[in-house]
């Protein structure tokens, strides 16, 4: 009898192990940022008939970088609308369709191209609800990849998030991870206001462990990526991985708290302010030119709330005030690199 009991216990143990492994395999998997966006679109289109995607090459090619891959086959050309090269026209198509209750997701192939559609974003999408006395809504998402890294020169490499943050009536999301890309895009699609969704092209093909199934990431909730006590490092999108590398490099000497705001409008200043009150030092970093950038705005708000807690002058480490050059070594100096972040951390904590 005891032997039989042992056997049962062993079987029970093996069964538990199998369930654990199966669950683990089922619930966690590797996902690239671009695949996360694709999953978000697919799930939201499955969930809600009113959601459709529109833009250049969104059909057979699956979008400029693959975010809409497979959607044409699944949902047909009415819900996956490939357009002529007419950013103003098809962005406006999205705004107009949103006025009637549909939920369009407009893809702009490169953020730089939105310049040809700025009237539709700034004067139409951002203002129609307001100007109508809140009688209409514009549940629209405009997705666009930003930034440097692919060496595509000055008209395919810009970081223009500050423009959109400056226009009342728009929400602005800027995910740095596959997890946030999916969760924020799903939230953006369900939001009843226009959302400018700025994606990082260099992070598109970076994979990470994420759960299976569905999740949402709420707007206005910053992510504390690493806790620390000596310095608060706020890093936007593409700078978030570099900020984590820098924090790791100085760990042991300097304890750095890394925060990714995830959305710029709404902006979670509470998390940033609480952190600065703890650390006494604030460094903000982004790839956009430092002049007139988002960093200056975060710094302004932080000073209003925690000036008395600061032990050092707060700093914005942004990009150079220049159009982005093509040549790789020149491009590299235009945006902060991990070494620049490390140097600035050391300088501020000397």
């Amino acid at each position: 009898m005891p032997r039989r009991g042992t056997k049962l216990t062993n079987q029970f143990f093996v069964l538990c192990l199998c369930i654990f492994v199966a669950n683990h395999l089922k619930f966690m998997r590797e996902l690239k940022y671009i695949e996360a966006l694709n999953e978000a679109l697919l799930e939201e289109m499955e969930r809600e008939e009113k959601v459709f995607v529109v833009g250049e090459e969104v059909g057979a090619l699956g979008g400029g970088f693959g975010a809409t891959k497979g959607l044409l086959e699944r949902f047909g050309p009415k819900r996956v609308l490939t357009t002529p090269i007419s950013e103003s026209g098809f962005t406006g198509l999205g705004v107009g369709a949103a006025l009637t209750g549909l939920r369009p997701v407009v893809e702009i192939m490169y953020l730089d191209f939105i310049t040809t559609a700025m009237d539709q974003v700034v004067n139409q999408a951002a203002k129609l609800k307001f100007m109508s006395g809140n009688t209409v809504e514009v549940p629209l998402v405009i997705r666009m990849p930003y930034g440097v890294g692919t060496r595509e020169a000055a008209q395919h490499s810009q970081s223009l998030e500050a423009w959109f943050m400056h226009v009342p009536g728009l929400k602005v999301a800027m995910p740095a991870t596959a997890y946030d890309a999916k969760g924020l895009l799903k939230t953006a699609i369900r939001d009843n206001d226009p959302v400018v969704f700025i994606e990082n092209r260099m992070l598109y093909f970076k994979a990470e462990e994420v759960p299976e199934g569905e999740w949402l990431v709420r707007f206005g909730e910053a992510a504390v990526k690493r806790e620390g006590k000596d310095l608060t490092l706020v890093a936007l999108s593409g700078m978030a991985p570099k900020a984590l590398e820098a924090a790791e490099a100085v760990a042991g000497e300097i304890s750095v708290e890394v925060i990714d705001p995830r959305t710029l409008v709404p902006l979670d200043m509470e998390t940033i302010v609480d952190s600065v009150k703890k650390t006494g030092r604030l460094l903000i970093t982004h790839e956009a030119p430092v002049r007139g950038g988002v960093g200056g705005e975060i710094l302004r708000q932080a000073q209003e709330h925690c000036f008395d807690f600061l032990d050092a002058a707060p700093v914005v480490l942004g990009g150079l005030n220049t159009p982005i050059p093509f040549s790789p070594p020149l491009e590299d100096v235009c945006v902060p690199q991990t070494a620049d972040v490390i140097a600035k951390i050391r300088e501020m904590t000397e």
Partner: protein
Amino acid sequence: MKPEIALRALETMYRIRLFEEMGKTRYNQNRMNGNFLGAFHSSIGQEAVPTGVSLALRRDDYVFSTHRGHGHALARGLDVKKVMAELRGKTDGCSGGRGGSMHLFDTSLGFLGGNGIVGGGLPLALGTAYSAYYRGTDQVTVCFFGDGAASQGTFHEALNMAALWKLPVVFVCENNCYAVMTHVRETVCIANVADRASGYGMPGCVVDGNDVLAVYQRTEEAVCRARQGGGPTLLECKTYRIDSHCMMLPEIRADNEIAGWKEHDPIRRWEKHLVENNIAGRGECEKLRAGVEAEIEEADRFAEESRYPDAEGFRKEIAGI
């Protein structure tokens, strides 16, 4: 055109004319007291265009207007009192005083706003038309724009895509001869904006924009085609803006040019047509006009008495955004 529709057309044109005259009076009085109330773009002389177009529409259709949109709104059936109050920035205005003269809305009538950006509404119209196709309804979108907007890039983009996908939209170009003070012959080198339609693969049609019957008939054909899946139409209504571009700018056009166009006044022409064809007598027309006059005076009183929005409440409302 049935007699009751013919009379409704006359009443609508009276309403637009008298509204514009009252609006101008109040605008100028305010301005003399040092209060600017926007720019006030009068549509006097162009009344037949929105009137004829709107008569051909169904209640669930969509309409996009322009900066010169009082006539579009009134012809579509927006409440005169609410439009007047909006022009004065009052809380009872159709946009609660947040839009003003250039941003009149009424979603219950599918009236999705004027637009302060010349050509800004063309892509939006593409969107509502696509939405009707998407949802499988037979709603038609009408997009008003001027000869000036025909030179914007959005005109090209919207017309190309509308024709490409055969969307149910009627592009109504109100060619009033002027973009601010620049004559259309200085901005377009062909005789008609509508001639461009063939280049996009859609029918184009030129109509006398001061003839309400002609506007109605041509619009009805275009709307019918759009509703049946036949795609878009570019309808050019040739008319003339009797007033200056807006109340802030002086008149620089030749007196005889303006006087010449006054001879083609769309309202007088329609009165004459109704009388000569025994559809209505002079007395009936006058009675109709008197009724509209009383309505406009009531709207003026309503706008005057309506409160201004509460600035502190507004401050609180936007604080969290």
